[in-house]
């Protein structure tokens, strides 16, 4: 597999003043409220090796896409750039910060690249224009095909330097697509590029989840005639059936420590939430009710699980304490609340609610207060999942006449944009931890 071969080296030789606080350090939980004026210059050819403008252009597109999606920046218009933008000078003393101050930029990205014998080197610096200091410097080496990954990785680094928390852009998104005619498991970049098919079950594959500790996915497949839970090692491709009880083995979710999996089993003729070990043995049954209990999602501390149940009539979200098994109801509004996803920061739970046949994404605090609707209008938006830093949500949207696609938005509902390709009929996205 191609991913295995990425011999990508991240050399932190230039990380001199990495952790210096940025003058305008901002609150990560409130994207859009305060933006940093940022100037991003073109990547310039450096050293030996000819210029490869296509490489520079692709890099800039990817990086700019991530930065814009974050909603944290107010990009300085490149048309206004002055002479310093065309100079390669990457050292602090070589930069005319005065020019950038005149344009109102508070942060500046400069970089150079070279290609020698198939090896791509990209050197990047992020400066604080006001204090004229280097915030982060990185040199990346890889193959020409690694250019997108380098751009995503640097975007993560920029967010870390400016906000204290790494971005989620170099992670992966797993999803289910029907592009072969049958539902199979796929993986792609956070911006929807480079999709790769992971399974060839020619059956029905559903609902993937990433292991938080290993490069591994779990999912449900009808490959052997029953909806069983499978595990797949991403780099080796090795695959095994993890839970094959008669009836449903669905909605598997790794615990935050990666040691257990919460899932729905119906081996006793009724769907209940269970915890199983990574060897597939049942550790514990968490629910006990004749109604439908499905869709578990762990709190980040691993002490509670939110799930969907129709025990009070309509599908609603409940929370069960993993230790005491005490159950309490979380959602009261609406008639159909489903697919909860507990945010990695612990404060909010996202889910989708159906009104008049259309799903929209909502979030609510763990105590049931402060419910907010994040999406509106046409198209059913389902299966919200969080980015590992809690800044973004991904979900499926069937805006295009029944064909589903993967969308991404900020955690406050702004900046919604489609990332998966046309014609895939894509659903069930899941965002990996930092890759």
């Amino acid at each position: 597999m191609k991913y295995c071969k990425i011999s990508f080296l991240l050399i932190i030789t230039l990380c001199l003043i990495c952790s210096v606080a940025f003058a305008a350090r901002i609150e990560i939980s409130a994207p859009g409220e305060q933006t940093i004026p940022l100037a991003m210059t073109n990547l310039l050819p450096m050293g030996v090796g000819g210029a490869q403008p296509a490489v520079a252009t692709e890099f800039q597109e990817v990086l700019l896409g991530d930065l814009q999606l974050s909603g944290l920046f107010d990009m300085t218009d490149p048309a206004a750039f002055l002479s310093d933008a065309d100079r390669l000078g990457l050292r602090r003393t070589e930069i005319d910060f005065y020019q950038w101050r005149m344009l109102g930029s508070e942060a500046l990205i400069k970089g150079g690249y070279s290609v020698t014998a198939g090896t791509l080197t990209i050197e990047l610096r992020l400066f604080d224009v006001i204090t004229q200091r280097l915030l982060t410097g990185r040199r990346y080496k890889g193959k020409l095909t690694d250019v997108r990954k380098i751009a995503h990785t640097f975007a993560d680094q920029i967010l870390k330097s400016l906000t204290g928390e790494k971005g989620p852009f170099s992670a992966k998104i797993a999803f289910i697509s029907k592009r072969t005619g049958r539902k199979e498991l796929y993986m792609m970049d956070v911006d929807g590029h480079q999709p790769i098919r992971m399974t060839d079950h020619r059956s029905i594959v559903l609902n993937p989840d990433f292991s938080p500790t290993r490069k591994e996915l779990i999912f449900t497949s009808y490959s052997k005639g029953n909806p069983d839970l499978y595990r797949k090692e991403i780099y080796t491709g090795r695959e095994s059936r993890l839970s094959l009880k008669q009836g449903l083995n669905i909605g598997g979710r790794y615990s935050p420590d990666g040691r257990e999996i919460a899932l729905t089993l119906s081996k006793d003729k009724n769907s209940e939430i269970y915890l199983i070990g990574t060897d597939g043995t049942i550790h514990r049954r968490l629910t006990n009710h004749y109604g439908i209990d499905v869709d578990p999602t762990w709190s980040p501390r691993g002490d509670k699980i939110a799930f969907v149940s129709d025990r009070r009539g309509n599908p609603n979200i409940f929370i069960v304490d993993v230790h005491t098994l005490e159950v309490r109801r979380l959602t009261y509004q609406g008639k159909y609340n489903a697919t909860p996803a507990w945010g990695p920061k612990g404060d909010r739970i996202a889910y989708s609610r159906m009104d008049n046949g259309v799903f929209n994404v909502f979030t609510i605090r763990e105590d049931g207060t402060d419910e907010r609707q994040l999406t509106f209008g046409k198209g059913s938006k389902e299966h919200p999942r969080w980015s590992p830093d809690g800044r973004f949500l991904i979900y499926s949207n069937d805006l295009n006449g029944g064909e589903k696609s993967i969308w991404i938005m900020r955690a406050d509902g702004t900046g919604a944009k489609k990332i998966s390709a046309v014609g895939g009929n894509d659903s069930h996205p899941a965002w990996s931890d930092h890759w």
Partner: protein
Amino acid sequence: MQKLTITGVVILFALSLLVSGCAKKPAVETSEVQETSQVEMQQEEPAGVTDTKIEDKPAYDAAAYDAAGVAAAAERAAAKGLKRIHFDFDQYVLTAEAKSILVSNAGLLRAAAAVKVLIEGHCDERGSDEYNLALGEKRALATKNYLVSLGVAAERMNVISYGEEMPIDPARTKQAWAKNRRANFKVKR
């Protein structure tokens, strides 16, 4: 014009009901004939040896002598005659209509004792995928339990839920959704 087509459709539907009604009856009768025929045959055999060319119903004739043949016929009848049932939105309670269909299905299954069936539970596309998988299973189990209460052995029936994964009609209309909320039968031998 539209009225005409509607009446046309209604008439067609009524006709198809009649036809399917007719088609089904002999299948049910088969088993009745088989039970009584042996006695009658013994009585008739000495007298009526002359006339043997009933080529219309060779299967039934064979059935009269051959239990395996009868079973095969009943199996065929079950494979053809088991009808799917439908559910209301987000419900797994059997409707009166569904129950009456299951009564007829139970008759076919009791007649074909060798037949095993897989009961598939399905949902319409509205609703969450996992919830619908659980709901589809509830529908399949409700169907199975009712058939058990009508005297079909539980071991002969397995259930599986496909949730909303296998719609009959992918359209996004009320009619399509109603069609897709169903439990159907697959005969296994």
